[in-house]
């Protein structure tokens, strides 16, 4: 075959064609074009540093995944009004680099592996590992010298400083902080109009939930009385399933039980939960397609009134679903339900409360040539002025001061271009998703425009202090620990998620639960728990 091909080309070359020089040139030209195109492929992707000519400030590149509320109107975060203002105030030039939506982790890992780093990155990551790998730098001295505003906040809030600092006292991130009242942003919402129609009370215990879901199934005939599967990562059980699991006082990962670290899925309560969920599945109370749901099908089921109850966020979720639902059915109504419990009168433990430090922040990479300027610029967001800019945007354009209360203008609340509140905010400033700086309660108070949203915020926060007793604080692992831990947990995670689906669907009978536990023990979950426990002890000793 190869022989044949070579022979063939020979005879082509032997033809008179080559005598005509214009053809020859053309051929060579095409060859060159092709090779350039092929080589061009390698340099793409990381096109960053467009040097600012002349005396302009040196550009600082920041890698950050773009929030969907922003990407709906903007191509880059550089176009956000507050960012432009920030550049002016701090005399810097910021260049955002955004990974493709849906491929953030992949692109981050590839970027790290290839060591082609921007100046700074906004991440929610394993900071100690990044530091030990030499990717990012320690910020303590820089903060002491160039970030007076952040330094002041850390001094005034020792609890925040404790969370932010690694075991050895290192600080690696310029943080995103939530110091106000609002710390729970999502939960399970239910079709209140259906409850009213069927004369049912809002469910609190799992038993009541079962009754309500059954009524939805039988009397309303919906396909997914309880919808989950849950965006954004389909590989996990999703927030909705843990909500019901957490009614048993455990969760699907490591958590704290009486001050000790335990792993939820090997606790006996997990079996009870699986038994119940399997029954719900068989009776058609949960979405039969839960394992294949993505954001699109999730939305579709809610908006076509096929879902009776589902997990969503107060701001971006309800703010979008409720108006859309009411467009087709004016009676449609969504209200928040309390995190479920086992027995009437119990208080829920897990409420999705975030820590004061949300674990995300901007890190400076080793290739940053101007760390001082970067830290100085980022510290602006912790100043009085920067705080207002981050949370409310530009005075006159996006907010006005009414009785010392920054009130959003119609540009935000009743956007003339028909943008939702979340989208209008994202176009002008960075309040409704994590970014450097501190969230302002007054933003949340106005972000939640609908009464249902305001009620939800209060309801979800009611027991949020309980979560401090069970939730693991932002501990930090050493490099060796972190490598070992993530290796064990990634195997266990895959296995747990697969088995969860099998147990619920019934492919795997619940009698095999002990085998499931055995297998997780074989993966060496004990070692993973030990690592977390040691990290927790170190955290408590800080």
């Amino acid at each position: 075959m190869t022989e044949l091909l070579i022979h063939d080309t020979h005879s082509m070359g032997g033809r008179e064609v080559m005598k005509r020089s214009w053809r020859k040139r053309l051929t060579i030209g095409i060859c060159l074009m092709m090779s350039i195109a092929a080589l061009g492929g390698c340099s793409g992707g990381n096109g960053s540093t467009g040097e600012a000519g002349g005396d302009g400030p040196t550009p600082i590149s920041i890698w950050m995944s773009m929030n969907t509320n922003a990407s709906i109107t903007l191509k880059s975060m550089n176009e956000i009004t507050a960012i432009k203002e920030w550049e002016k105030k701090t005399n810097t030039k910021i260049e955002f680099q955004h990974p493709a939506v849906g491929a953030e982790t992949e692109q981050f890992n590839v970027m790290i592996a290839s060591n082609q780093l921007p100046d700074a990155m906004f991440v929610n990551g394993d900071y100690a590992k990044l530091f030990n790998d030499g990717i990012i730098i320690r910020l303590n001295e820089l903060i002491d010298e160039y970030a007076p505003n952040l330094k002041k906040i850390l001094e005034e809030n020792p609890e925040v400083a404790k969370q932010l600092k690694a075991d050895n006292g290192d600080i690696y991130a310029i943080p995103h902080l939530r110091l106000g009242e609002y710390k729970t942003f999502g939960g399970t919402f239910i079709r209140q109009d259906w409850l009213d129609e069927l004369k049912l009370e809002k469910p609190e215990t799992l038993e009541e939930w079962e009754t309500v879901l059954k009524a939805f199934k039988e009397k309303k005939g919906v396909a997914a009385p309880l919808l989950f599967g849950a965006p954004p990562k389909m590989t996990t059980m999703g927030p909705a399933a843990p909500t019901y699991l957490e009614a048993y006082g455990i969760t699907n990962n490591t958590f704290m039980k009486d001050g000790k670290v335990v792993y939820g899925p090997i606790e006996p309560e997990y079996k009870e939960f699986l038994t119940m969920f399997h029954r719900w599945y068989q009776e058609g109370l949960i979405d039969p397609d839960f394992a294949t749901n993505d954001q699109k099908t999730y939305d579709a089921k809610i908006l076509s009134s096929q879902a009776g109850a589902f997990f969503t966020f107060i701001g971006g979720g309800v703010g979008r679903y409720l108006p859309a639902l009411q467009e087709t059915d004016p009676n449609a109504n969504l209200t928040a339900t309390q995190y479920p419990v086992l027995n009437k009168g119990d208080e829920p433990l897990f409420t999705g409360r975030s820590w004061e430090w949300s674990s995300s922040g901007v890190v400076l990479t080793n290739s940053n040539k101007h760390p001082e300027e970067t830290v100085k610029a980022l510290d602006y967001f912790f100043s009085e002025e920067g705080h207002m800019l981050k949370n409310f945007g530009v005075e006159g354009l996006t907010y006005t001061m009414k009785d010392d209360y920054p009130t959003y203008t119609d540009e935000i609340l009743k956007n003339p271009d028909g943008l939702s509140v979340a989208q209008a905010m994202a176009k002008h400033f960075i309040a409704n998703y994590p970014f450097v700086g501190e969230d302002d309660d007054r933003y949340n108070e106005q972000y939640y425009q609908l009464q249902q949203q305001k009620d939800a915020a209060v309801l979800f926060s009611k027991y949020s202090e309980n979560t401090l007793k069970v939730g693991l604080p932002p501990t930090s692992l050493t490099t060796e620990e972190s490598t070992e831990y993530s290796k064990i947990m990634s195997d266990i995670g895959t296995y747990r998620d697969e088995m969860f689906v099998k147990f619920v669907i019934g492919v795997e009978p619940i009698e095999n639960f002990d085998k499931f536990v055995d297998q997780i023990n074989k993966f060496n979950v004990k070692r993973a728990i030990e690592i977390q426990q040691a990290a927790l002890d170190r955290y408590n000793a800080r």
Partner: protein
Amino acid sequence: MKELSHKFSLLWLNYKKNKAIYWMALPVVLYFLVFKYLPMYGAIIAFKDYSVGKGIWGSDWVGLQHFRDFFQSYYFWRILKNTLLLSFYQLLFGFPAPILLALLLNELRHEIFKRTVQTISYIPHFISIVVICGMIVDFSSRDGLFNTIIGYFGGQSSALLSDPANFRTIYTASSIWQELGFSSIIYLAALSGINPELYDAANVDGASRLRQVWHITLPGIIPMIMILLILRIGGLMEIGFEKIILLYNPNVYDTADVISTFVYRKGISESAEFSYTTAVGLFQSVINFALLIGANRLSKVISNTKLF
């Protein structure tokens, strides 16, 4: 030494004669150098504990640790089995299909009908795999086309792609559908090279159509079949990774998770175990290499055709 310089001078003469050809080959050579040979350097991290800060060369050696981890891993047998089975089904059902189509088309005498069939059968090849998979996912959803058809015959509708039992069938059948027409072109080309006098002679001898196919057509394309078979066997472990990524979900990992998807998940999409996954990928390549050599030897023995 003398012989070498002789060879070079021959090469130089050849170059002067066929300059444009050499230039035309340049991008291809560059492509292989840059994208296939250069990255091989990175494969050494399979034997190291790769840390980005220390770089490829500076990271610590760990020997065969990652290979040992992989062979002892809970998922080893599953992904190996899935990889081999999916490939095997593709080979078993996917390989003969285009030959069959080519033979059928070859027997057609009505030119316009033949052309139409050919064109229709290779259109799917030109549709992007992402679109193809989007269609498959849509068709096999609970209220999709396949379920409508199943329902028409009184069956229960179910989410076909969430059932591990269906994955291999869907995967193999759709691959055949997509590549059937296009793969048959090369056989049709080989068929047109068969001397028509052979058929005339067979006709005179009174051979039926089926006999002619068996004694003239098939032997005529056997070398082509063997070459393609060797290539296919060489790539046995290299199962279409994009397609699986686009079709699978955690429910069907049991039958759908293969080596390449495992590497993708552990390597960049879920965790970042660079060294470990490089070792796994390297393992796959070694097996592929062995299979290719084996198939080549075998083919030489059986039909005296070989690739190298």
